[in-house]
């Protein structure tokens, strides 16, 4: 058997150099190594095509002539070739450092050692000695497809929490150890964030250029950290007393603007805009004895009621 690698290489060369789509028969005639019998060479070609697509060779199927039923394959050079990046040596070294110091976990390594390294090699970088890992990020199967849709501005469809979602992806953010895709949820008509690892299906991309990303859209701030603001309830302003032991980092977390009062014992009163009462309660309870809801009376009563129910339920146990 002729070497498969040889046949694949010739196939790429032939499809790249042909100025027009080639029919399967033309391909088999031009590229040595295919079996003689039609069903066999058709199957063999399908396998080869799958291999080429796997490594990212953009084979397109097109009509041979305008208005023609017959179709053929070709590779457009503009799609195939890496555009020049004009990286300086320093820039290449910086990317090399990034690929060695940052690991995408769960990535299927191969001879080159991961997608980042393969990319680096294409850019003319080199594989140096391994360095200790400085940061590890999880790799999620949906990410390449989400990234591709994001950069091509293609609407995506996927299943999330059991239901179908349609999203115009505006950005991809890594926060708190998770990857999120942020964008315009076409059904809810609002900006929404989805955790990439919780997507329950493949990513179905629509056509490219389907939407415009809003000017100066900041995906990181769209993915709001403060869960009590992430709701649709009537906003209320809450005051929360946090004791000295926790005041420092809570303030660092919320920002100095949130401080309504500093008390002599080191505790602080924080002002919080709440549109999600459940998330707010959860956050306050996370501080255990170190926090108390001061106002408004409505949220204070809500907390007291919640705690009473729990205090009572254990009494009989």
């Amino acid at each position, binding site marked *: 058997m002729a*070497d*498969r*690698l*040889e046949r*694949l*290489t*010739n196939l790429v*060369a*032939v499809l790249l150099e042909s100025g027009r789509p080639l029919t399967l028969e033309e391909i088999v005639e031009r590229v*040595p190594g295919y079996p003689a019998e039609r069903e066999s060479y058709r199957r063999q070609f399908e396998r080869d095509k799958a*291999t080429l697509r796997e*490594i*990212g*060779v953009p084979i397109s199927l097109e009509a041979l002539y305008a208005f023609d039923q017959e179709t053929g394959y070709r590779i457009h050079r503009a799609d*195939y070739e*890496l*555009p020049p*990046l004009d990286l300086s040596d320093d*820039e290449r*070294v910086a*990317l090399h450092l*990034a*690929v060695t*110091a*940052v690991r*995408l976990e769960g*990535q299927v390594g191969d*001879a*080159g050692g991961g997608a*980042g390294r*393969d*990319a680096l*090699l*294409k*850019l003319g970088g080199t*594989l140096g000695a391994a360095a200790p*890992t*400085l*940061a*590890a*990020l999880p790799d999620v199967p949906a990410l*390449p497809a989400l*990234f591709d849709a994001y950069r091509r501005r293609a609407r995506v469809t996927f299943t999330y929490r059991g239901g179908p979602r349609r999203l115009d992806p505006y950005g*991809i*953010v*890594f*926060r*708190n*150890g998770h990857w999120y895709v942020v964008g315009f949820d076409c059904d809810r008509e609002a900006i929404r964030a989805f955790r990439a690892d919780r997507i329950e299906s493949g990513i179905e991309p629509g056509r490219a250029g389907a939407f415009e990303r809003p000017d100066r859209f900041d995906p990181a701030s769209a993915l709001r950290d403060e869960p009590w603001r992430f709701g649709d309830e009537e906003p209320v302003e809450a005051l929360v007393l946090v004791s000295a032991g926790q005041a420092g980092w809570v303030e*660092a977390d919320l920002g100095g603007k949130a401080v309504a009062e500093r008390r002599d014992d080191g505790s602080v009163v924080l002002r919080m805009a709440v549109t999600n009462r459940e998330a707010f*309660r959860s956050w306050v*309870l996370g501080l*255990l*004895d170190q926090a108390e809801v001061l106002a408004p009376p409505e949220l204070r009563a809500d907390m007291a009621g919640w*705690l009473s*129910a*729990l*205090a009572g*339920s*254990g009494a009989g146990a």
Partner: protein
Amino acid sequence: MTRPDAAVRLRRLLTIIPWIVDHQGSNLDELAARFGIKVAELERDLELVPFCGLPPYTPDRLIDCEIVDGRVFLRFAEYFARPLSLTPGEGFALLAAGQALLAVPGADPSGSLAAALGKLAGVLGAGDGMAVELGPARYLEPLRAAAEAGERVEIDYYTFGRDELTTRRIDPRAVFAAAGQWYVDAYCHRAEDDRLFRVDRVRGVRPTGERFEASSRGGAGATGPGGSGIFNPRPTDRRVTLVLNASAAWVPESYPMESVEELPDGRLRVVLVASERAWLERLLLRLGPAAEVLDPAEVRVEAAEAARRLLVRYG
């Protein structure tokens, strides 16, 4: 040794050929090192090149590959003069790695890395919609410096699980980001054992003037970031069985579980390891009626006690 399959070899070949076309006379050893393969593998790939080309595969239509004194020359390979464009997976991985490194405190936001990422994002059409945040870490810099210099430091550390602040002397070995947090892998003189500390829970760092032997490798994070080092339950830790409503389905997604089982009514029965009481109190107070404690019974009492304790402030 398993032979790399045709896809891997083809991807490599389509990267190596343009490099050689651009760098005629490259040395075999250097090429092999550059592409992270053995010289024999490279030679095997290059042996094939003279059989590749275009119909009718006459000498003038085949790629001419010559190796003279260990130096490689390629002719008639213009159609492979440029590498294959990046796949979405490759582009994403490189951008993500670069942005992560740029997110490390102390990185130069206008240095070479940022410039390279800008060019890369431009070519990929990726704009500026990608962001990587590695978690807050006020004391990252002093801890990294101490780890690098092998300096023993004293830290104030907040133990979330016990809700207490302690002061301890540690020998920091390495600092790394994993699972959305910064960690310092260290020998702790208070625990007399290796410990992983979350940098965001460090409330103060002071030099001691003492040094430690940096040779004591290994330790709590020896498996590396993301490995089992971050959460290692001990056999003596308390196991708690809960039944969770749908609204508490985030719990098994957020914390390590020993087991998760879906009940016929759609609720989840989970077993989790709760080494610290405060951690468990926090969880049960937040979950409220969405969680039912099956076992052990005393946990139910503890949760109710915690609720009564907090309730005092609302009386």
